[in-house]
């Protein structure tokens, strides 16, 4: 049970050979401000890095970022790899510029949903809105 003394633990990080560090640092600060315990993997991560961190901190949710469009190359199989370690119900979000170039939002969202992401934020997103959704989803207790 998560309380103020035992806050929700969130793993965040940027996926792929992606070094966009600014939004990552902002997200980390905003989540901490909102009372979450943040495990920030920062830039240059693969799926395995996220899974290692999930196991280390016994995380409640994973928030993946992609700014340079590599997201679509690295994310297929994200959920199934989590499930192999027993995290089939862990909350999994992704946001940012998820593909290279312009693409249809509905198509991109449904593709990432099919890889097991519970919520997909395409392009510029209000972080406060993300946090309110995260709170809601965590309260509901399981993956969508």
């Amino acid at each position, binding site marked *: 049970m998560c309380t103020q003394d035992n806050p929700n633990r969130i793993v965040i990080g940027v996926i792929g050979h992606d*070094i966009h560090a600014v939004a990552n*640092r*902002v997200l980390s*600060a905003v989540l901490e401000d909102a009372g979450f315990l943040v495990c920030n993997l*920062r830039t*240059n991560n693969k799926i395995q890095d996220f899974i290692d961190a999930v196991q280390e901190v016994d995380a409640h949710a994973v928030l993946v970022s992609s700014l340079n469009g590599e997201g679509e*190359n690295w994310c297929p199989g994200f959920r199934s790899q989590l499930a192999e370690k027993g995290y089939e119900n862990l909350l999994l979000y992704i946001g940012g510029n998820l593909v290279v170039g*312009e693409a249809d939002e509905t198509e991109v969202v449904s593709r990432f949903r099919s890889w097991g992401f519970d919520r997909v934020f395409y*392009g510029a997103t209000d972080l406060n809105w993300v946090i309110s959704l995260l709170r809601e989803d965590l309260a509901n207790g399981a993956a969508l």
Partner: protein
Amino acid sequence: MARPYKNNYLPSFDGIRSQVLGHPKLEGVIDNEVREYLAGMQDECFASVRFSRPHHSPYIQPRGGYATFDRQQKLTKALSEAGADFLPLTIDSYTRHNDYDRAQLLLEKSLGDGKDYLNGYPLVNHGFEITRLLFTDLNKPVSLRHGTPDARVLVEMAIASGITEIEGGGISYCLPYSMNYPLDRALLNWQYIDRLAAQYSTPERPIHREFFGPLTGTMVPPAMMIAVSIIELLLAAEQGVCSATVAFSQTGSFFQDVATANVFRKFSAKYLQELGFTDMKVYLAYHHWMGAFPPDRRKADYLIACASLTAKIIGADKVITKTRDEAWGIPSIQANVEAIQETNYVMSKFISTSSLNSPNIERESQLIAREARSIIDAVLDMPGNNFWYSVNRAVHMGIIDIPFAPNLANRNRLLTVRDGNLAIRIKSAGSVPLDDTAIEEERALLQQYPSSFISTADQMLGDINVML
């Protein structure tokens, strides 16, 4: 003291080079053949030659890189026809991390699906023979745009392809562009590249180097952009580079931009002169806004217009463009073409004939000069045997500190905020050696022009998102 000095060449360059040329991807790159190819190119293809000719407006340099040759060729032709003075070759993020195998797979997937899975041109995989074909007959210099801590293979391939301008440096392409890459290795890799550029240079047609002053493009104080660029300029000068560009990006404050340009010019000349590098020719480039771009494309256009105007007013030798697609990912060909037209329109309709000055600009120039001098002199005065090693230690000690840089060697203790005029102010210097006068002046300016934010978190977000 480990001051940079002339002909302090990277030891055993030839030995390292034969190892680099032994990379399987560089099969077929032969020094003599490359020299012959360069010798057969027109003068106009050399960035150094173009810069040395009189120009009354900044040269226009777009960015741009796609996965496949065909699309890159379409882009290159379109950019050239739209009036780009310099052509780009922007490299994908896999190649930037030396992940040539995955770049190859994604290049093949891009060809198969008719859709790009790479955010730039994988030059090492395409090779030099086909890449030469991108630029023949266009008679324009090509600039390698990337972000690679170990770019030795890439730059060998680039020069073999007829690319005569190489962007980057040991600090500016390591700290903002990698999390784990060791800085000392990056500095040595870039000494190799500087030496390589010098070796392929002829007195009339040097290979040109450009340093990436914008760094993270986010809340970097002008003095740090200047200090890092001038340090990279001196590192290149040691290896025999004799034509180079220092660069910075739009700060968000017009008068801070004017002041930054003033100090950049003055200090490039001053340090080269003092350290005996009198044969180096230095130019100044200005980057359109490098921070968080407005998703609203109309606002993006306004921002690009303002930046172009600034480039013209400060008399930059080159302006490096962004597009209205910036917030949305890799721009289309059309967006790139329109950015060139927009930049060209603004700069050709606005003729400024005298340099700009005001008490505000003078005050800002003096402050930036004081701070940049403190940082550069602190590195120059460090004990040791080699300048590059002083630079390495200066980063680890926090003398050089780049806001928001992801590299683990970066201290992240330098804190900046925007004042009420949107100028970048140093709130806490961390271990950056600024004197009391500078710190007090920063504080005084912040008090005189206070920002409207109340909480630290709001200020951080507001400062980053200032142009949204």
